[in-house]
């Protein structure tokens, strides 16, 4: 615990920690880097608040509800596939080799 440690309050250091918050949340950093961020978060209110809202943003994205597929989509797709099978190359999506 070194609350007066100068690097913690250096804007350049803050920016450097801030740049890696997503990797920190995704557990993509090694032990040492993780601890460095955690130590910074203990002392930097701004980064701590940012980390919490960033984590929530990611969680909300992960929980986004899915839209239902339009009813006609499957039938239209089946029709296009059958056309393709029967050798009709004019179907949308087909491209000449």
């Amino acid at each position: 615990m070194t609350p007066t440690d100068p690097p913690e309050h250096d804007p350049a250091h803050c920016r450097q920690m801030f740049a890696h918050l997503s990797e920190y949340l995704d557990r993509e950093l090694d032990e040492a880097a993780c601890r460095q961020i955690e130590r910074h978060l203990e002392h930097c209110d701004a980064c701590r608040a940012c980390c919490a809202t960033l984590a929530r943003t990611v969680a909300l994205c992960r929980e986004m509800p899915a839209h239902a597929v339009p009813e006609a989509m499957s039938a239209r797709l089946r029709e296009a596939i059958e056309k393709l099978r029967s050798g009709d190359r004019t179907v949308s999506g087909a491209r000449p080799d």
Partner: protein
Amino acid sequence: MIEAINAGEIDRFYELVQRYQQALFNFGLRICGQAADAEDMVQDTFLNVFKYLKTFRFETQFKNWLYRIAMSACIKRRRRSRFAPERELSLDEFLPSDEQIAVDTPAWAREPLDRVLDEELARRIEDAILALPEAYRPVLVLRDLEGFSTEETAQILGLTPGNVKVRLHRARLFVREQLKEYFSHDPHRSA
């Protein structure tokens, strides 16, 4: 299943469609913003899968291959975006400012997720994603909505993993700004 389809069992192909069509349709919606475009993209994707399934290499995950085809179908059908100007997002525009320092973690980041995420917020998040510049949008959609790993996302988009991480972080910060704004304008929510 893929071997069975390649051996001529066409019904198995429709199983494949059933399995992935909703995920692909939602992916298309999130990238293109329009249901009609998303539907066309899904159709293009499955037609291409049908045509090129014989060339599929089993050392890649089928789902990754599928999304690579879907992504190029999106790009082919891309219209000039009405939502998002093409621009770089820089880290500095998202750096926390002094005025935030005294602020506690806001309610929307503390309350149970299911109480926060209602239809209105879901729409707002969709709008925020569509407002992302195109270089960032697919990265966030693949990582945080579709659940692909950094490596997989890099493969699908033809980027380096480092590039995926940088873009993802900025994209998340961008969406976070929109959410902050949304909650700050709504007294019921920020209370």
